[in-house]
């Protein structure tokens, strides 16, 4: 290892990432953040203190060996860095772009206590992008076993689970209802934040592991989860279908033609390429003045898509204040730079119609923050008599989603009171052999959390199938091998599966 670094000896300023100019990028769909150059990455990697506590690892939902891969970057061993990343994270290019690092690894970085935290996400993205450019894939030696695993949904949870099960030697098939794989990464997250070719590159890596993708397949309706287990020969099934079912505000004017969910706007624009209409057939509603309700990542994506589709004015309406906004700080910042107008502490009370089925404006009320609610955030309360109207012709709701009902309608899986799939602490669902994770279990969350759930489910699935989890002994980072016997984790439930004909 290099000489001991101290907080004084490292580069003090976080290495900035080149970005497209806000004026220019608000008119195109090319990626906003251009990524680190080699020099940028080397400089930034020097900022990691290689501290012994490694809080960043515990801050990461999938426990990436962060100092390990950063050390490899400082040694200019990028392949080595990629190898370490892919030990735990299958999709570094994606996570480097879309993880909320400021609340995870970077949020607990020691450097961040006195300076700006090490730009872990940007470094991860640098390594991931380098791998795509160089065509690196880590295909481990896979010893096929007799198990067949089905994955329902090809989003981040499904992809992560599929990768782990394929590496364990299972015959893995991923089912997707859309005509293209990728789930929310494809239909939800816009190109300027996560280009489609990055997603396709990661999907191709999965295919190289032997994972099969079956699109145009609506599990539940084409065949049920029970049929997969009983008739189609799957030994285990993972359900990662996402939350879906967008929430509407339930205020007058909800069903007017100028009102749509962020999911619809984003799906039309991203997956269906409506932004290239009429070259692609799917239309997208255009607005001159667009109001997006909500302040999560989806809301930020919606505001920025609306700008790029040619809106003159885009407002973001949120009933709490900026501090409570759930979006990544960088997204709010980017939206602001591009000219989105934020109206904090403002709540819509009615959508006003233009008499022709469309929208002419929105009536809002001002809010103030009261006592903290269950979520710990201060509850917004309306200020009496503060209603006001403003002009808008397109209203986008980005206020969260409810549970997608298809799994509940078509299987005997037990649901919780909100309609999400009920699971135990190992993500096992109520039907033997079925596991679930991601948004369909927790409600809307982040890409990395879904991937974490996919990997956790894969571990339980391996235990259920009686596959020795090769990862376990090596994850024991203290090197003592405690908890393992001859390299086999003692907690592992190893049993022979008996199938009754």
């Amino acid at each position, binding site marked *: 290892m290099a000489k001991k670094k101290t907080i004084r000896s490292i580069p003090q300023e976080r290495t900035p990432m080149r970005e497209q100019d806000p004026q220019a990028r608000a008119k195109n769909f090319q990626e906003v953040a251009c990524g680190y150059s080699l020099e940028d990455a080397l400089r930034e990697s020097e900022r990691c203190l290689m501290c012994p506590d490694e809080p960043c690892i515990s801050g990461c939902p999938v426990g990436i060996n962060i100092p390990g891969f950063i050390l490899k970057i400082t040694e200019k061993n990028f392949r080595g860095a990629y190898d370490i990343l892919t030990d735990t994270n299958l999709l570094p290019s994606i996570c480097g772009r879309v993880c909320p690092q400021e609340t995870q690894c970077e949020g607990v970085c020691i450097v961040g206590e006195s300076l700006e935290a090490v730009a872990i996400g940007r470094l991860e993205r640098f390594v991931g992008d380098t791998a795509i450019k160089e065509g690196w894939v880590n295909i481990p030696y896979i010893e096929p076993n007799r198990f067949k695993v089905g994955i329902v949904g090809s989003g981040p949870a499904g992809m992560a689970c599929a990768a782990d099960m394929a590496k364990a030697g299972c015959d893995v098939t991923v089912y*997707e*209802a*859309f*005509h*293209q*794989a990728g789930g929310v990464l494809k*239909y939800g997250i816009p190109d300027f934040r996560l280009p489609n070719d990055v997603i*396709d590159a990661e999907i191709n890596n999965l295919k190289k592991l032997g994972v099969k*993708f*079956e*699109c*145009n*397949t*609506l599990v539940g*309706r*084409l*065949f049920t989860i029970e049929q997969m287990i009983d008739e189609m020969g799957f030994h285990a099934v993972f359900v990662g279908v*996402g939350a*879906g*079912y*967008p929430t*509407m505000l*339930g205020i007058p004017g*909800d*069903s007017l*033609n100028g009102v*749509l*969910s962020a*999911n*619809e706007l984003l*799906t*039309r624009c991203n997956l*269906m*390429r409506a932004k290239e*209409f*009429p*070259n*692609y*057939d*799917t*239309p997208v*509603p255009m607005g001159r003045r667009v109001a997006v309700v909500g302040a999560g990542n989806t809301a930020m994506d919606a505001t920025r898509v609306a700008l790029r589709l040619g809106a003159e004015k885009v407002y973001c309406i949120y009933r709490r204040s900026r501090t409570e906004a759930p979006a990544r700080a960088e997204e709010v910042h980017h939206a602001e730079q591009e000219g989105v107008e934020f109206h904090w502490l403002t709540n819509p009370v009615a959508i006003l119609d233009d008499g022709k*089925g469309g929208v002419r404006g929105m009536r809002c009320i001002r809010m103030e923050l009261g006592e903290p609610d269950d979520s710990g955030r201060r509850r917004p309360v309306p200020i009496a008599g503060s209603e006001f109207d403003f002009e808008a012709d397109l209203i986008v709701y980005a206020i969260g989603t409810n549970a*997608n*009902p*298809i799994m509940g*309608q078509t299987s005997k899986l037990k649901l919780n009171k909100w309609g999400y799939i009920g699971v135990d602490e190992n993500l096992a669902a109520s039907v033997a052999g079925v596991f679930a994770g991601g948004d369909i279990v927790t409600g809307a969350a982040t890409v990395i959390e879904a991937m974490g759930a996919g990997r956790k489910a894969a571990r339980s699935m391996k235990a259920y199938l009686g596959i020795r989890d090769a990862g376990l002994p090596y994850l024991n980072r203290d090197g003592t091998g405690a908890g393992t016997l001859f390299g086999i984790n003692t907690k592992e439930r190893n049993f022979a599966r008996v199938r009754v004909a």
Partner: protein
Amino acid sequence: METSNFEIVAREDFSDVTYLLEVRHPLMAKAAKPGQFVIVMLNEHGERIPLTIADFDRKKGTITMVIQAVGKTTKQMQQECQVGTALYGMVGPMGIPSPVSHAKKVVCVGGGLGVAPIYPQLRGFKESGAYVIAILGFRNKDLVFWEDKFRACCDDLILCTNDGSAGMKGMVTDGIKVALAGHSNIEEVVAIGPPVMMKACAEATRAAKIRTMVSVNPIMVDGTGMCGGCRVKVGGQVKFACVDGPDFDGHLVDFDDLMSRLQRFTAVEREAEKRWSESCRMTKQIGPSALHDVSLGRATQSELLELPDPFEDAMGG
């Protein structure tokens, strides 16, 4: 990427604008139930359009759809979907299957294109032992299809045409009146057709308090409950047609809201269609060589050129 093709194994043209496509999909033929729908994509650049399943054949492993060429995509499909070609995407069966109730006497109303999807429901009722009255409505006799198929399956058939060129002269609601007059013990009415027709049917049975189910077909993108584009108001509540429907109690559906929402993209769609039909004309003028650019599957160039131009009238020919 990752998309298998869905081969068209049969096609029938009922009129200049209405055509039937039978697509091979054994798994879906096994799973499909009356009242469900599919979403198809013609090609990679296509839009996803929901189509109600008009029939399914478990033995042959096929799904049948009856389509009316009204917009750009459906007109392009009319031109390009020949036997032997394939659809880029087809997913389903979607939606909750129609509840085939234990009603002893049922009226099944199909209007125009709605005649096709009412068929599997009617067959379902027949198979469960009900006395089934079919009421089929068309604009004129040239548009009539499947009359024999229905006759073979129902106990009583009332055919209505707007101009009286076949069956009785009048709307399907006139047919409902005839049926109600002739049978005192009708327990259920199922109506599928344009929203304005389903609305009229629901009104025709409201006074007699006969349970009336309708199948709505709003604008959709994914068909899995994710986009919310297909929301309809039913009994004052917001429902998503794709996962909560597509069948709802006709007496509770807000049809005016549904019809207004169907107009969402009318202007852009008309524009797209015009642009497409103009490009079709261009292709014809330039000659067969230019056809190589267009993906036509196995449709031969001469076949394509022989097809009538559906826009002749609209363009002032």
